């Protein structure tokens, strides 16, 4: 960067690099400094001389050297303050600083004049003018540092972008879950079936060796147990029936597998969006699991309906209640539902039990 002092003094631009430039700037700074110091000493000497002259003349009435003090002091003070403003980095800030310095010196001078000349109303107006001018300058200089006020269209664009990326993230997650479920099905599960088939055939051939036969049999049973666990895991990740036959059928299957008596009332004329179906399914699934945990003998009603453009999934039980609305399972569900602009409410029923209700707006 070109040293601004050099520019002010009308010097030609200098190469903007190397230690030489810094030394030059320091020298010039020192030069300006000593100039101002000399001016200040001259001011004191001149003021003092005038005061002595005033005293010698013997006219003790009007202290006229005050004008010398003020008249000569103002340029010195202005120079000193302007020099101080050079410490501010070049740019609008430095210009505003210079403005402030000059305005300050001018105000001081004017106030002194006002004190010495009859104290009219004019000072207020002049100071107001100076203040407003400085305020406008400062505002312009620092406008870029004020917190930005985004325009409405920019906000709309941002919201659109967030909605798009959020639903994109949900789609990616659902696709990933399906992929994991398929990988399990075609990989580990298929191999375990093949393994247990081989073990079953081996068992058949070990008629003469009951000990080995028992070993193979227990290995086969372990493989079968592993398959049952993987099947439950698959259902928890991406229930095949949900994808193949939709929400109502999948929820009916959930109800059929539940150890509780679960009644399903459904009025969902058309298949909702897959993301909504998944959210509603997992709400019902988690709520049923909760009821089993807290009320092993409760009767449960599951309601699925589209109401005023929203998919509503409701699980009502008549158990002793106790579902913690802020438990980790329900908190996860709430996040899932809210990501689709929906709401999840857990409320007690009268006289007993509780209701978990998720409302998911369609076509959002």
């Amino acid at each position, binding site marked *: 960067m070109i040293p601004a002092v050099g520019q002010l003094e009308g010097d030609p631009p200098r190469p903007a690099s190397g230690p030489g430039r810094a030394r030059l700037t320091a020298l010039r700074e020192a030069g300006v400094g000593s100039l101002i110091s000399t001016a200040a000493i001259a001011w004191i000497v001149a003021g003092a001389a005038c005061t002595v002259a005033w005293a010698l003349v013997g006219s003790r009435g009007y202290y006229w050297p005050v004008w010398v003090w003020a008249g000569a002091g103002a340029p010195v003070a202005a120079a000193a303050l302007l020099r101080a403003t050079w410490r501010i980095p070049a740019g609008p800030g430095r210009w505003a600083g210079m403005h402030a310095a000059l305005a300050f010196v001018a105000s001081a001078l004017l106030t002194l004049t006002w004190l010495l000349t009859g104290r009219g109303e004019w000072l207020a107006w002049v100071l107001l003018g100076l203040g407003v001018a400085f305020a406008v300058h400062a505002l312009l200089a620092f406008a870029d540092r004020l917190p930005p006020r985004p325009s409405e269209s920019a906000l709309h664009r941002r919201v659109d972008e967030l909605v798009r990326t959020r639903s994109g993230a949900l789609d990616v997650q659902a696709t990933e879950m399906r992929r994991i479920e398929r990988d399990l*099905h075609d990989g580990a599960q298929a191999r375990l079936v*093949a393994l*247990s*088939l081989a073990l079953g055939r081996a068992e058949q051939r070990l008629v003469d060796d009951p000990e080995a036969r028992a070993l193979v049999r227990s290995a086969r049973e372990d*493989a079968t147990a592993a398959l049952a666990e993987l099947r439950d895991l698959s259902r928890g990740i991406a229930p095949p029936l949900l994808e193949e036959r939709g929400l109502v059928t999948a929820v009916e299957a959930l109800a059929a597998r539940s150890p509780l008596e679960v*009644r399903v009332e459904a009025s969902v004329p058309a298949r909702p969006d897959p993301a909504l179906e998944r959210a509603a399914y997992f709400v019902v699934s988690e709520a049923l699991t909760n009821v089993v945990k807290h009320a092993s003998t409760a009767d449960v009603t599951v309601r699925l309906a589209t109401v005023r453009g929203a998919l509503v999934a409701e699980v009502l039980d008549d158990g002793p209640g106790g579902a913690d609305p802020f438990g980790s399972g329900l908190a996860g569900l709430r996040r899932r539902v809210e990501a689709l602009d929906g709401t999840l409410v857990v409320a007690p029923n009268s006289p007993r039990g509780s209701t978990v209700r998720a409302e998911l707006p369609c076509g959002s």
Partner: protein
Amino acid sequence: MRVVIAEDHVLLREGLVALLRDAGIEVVAQSEDAEGLLRTLAGHRPDLAIVDVRLPPTFTDEGVRAAIEARRRWPDLAVLVLSQHVEEVYTAELLAAGGGGLGYLLKERVAEVQEFLDAVRRVADGGTAIDREVVAQLVRPGRDGGEGPLADLTPREREVLGLMAEGRSNVAIAGALVVTPGAVEKHVTSIFSKLDLPSSSEDHRRVLAVLAWLSVEADAEA
């Protein structure tokens, strides 16, 4: 017995073929997808088709659809559907599609070799083999609203009903419960009177009546 297999997983297909060959059952053709299955069935007219539920191209429920289509086209064809998860709704759809022998079992049942081969022979003979996981859902006491006839059954009767719904004969049920066939017969008579079903001495007919009752009546009463 002549069998056609539709299974896209090579390891399983080969295992299944070997298992059936060991038991003296002839596998006349194999296919890897639903379309191939229907073509093969038209060409070979086997006694039994063993079908995996998930087949190319979408790997969802093509096998069930193909089995339903096959039962419609060839009403006498016996179909055994294998899947890694069994669902009540598919059982009902398969049963409704035709009158030939029907099996619907979890894939892992193939490892219980003797029972699996029994099921294969039973289905090929026009009988039924429904997985016990589905049957457990069908006969649970709360199914008909908790106040219907299912709730009136004794635990033993529910056990017998379940085994009957799986497609087993009286003799097989007696063997599984370690009781005499006469005792089973007594339970069966009691069950049929509680469910208000006409009794029948023929196994196949009896199973179908039970399954029809379980998948229609119980739902209606709930």
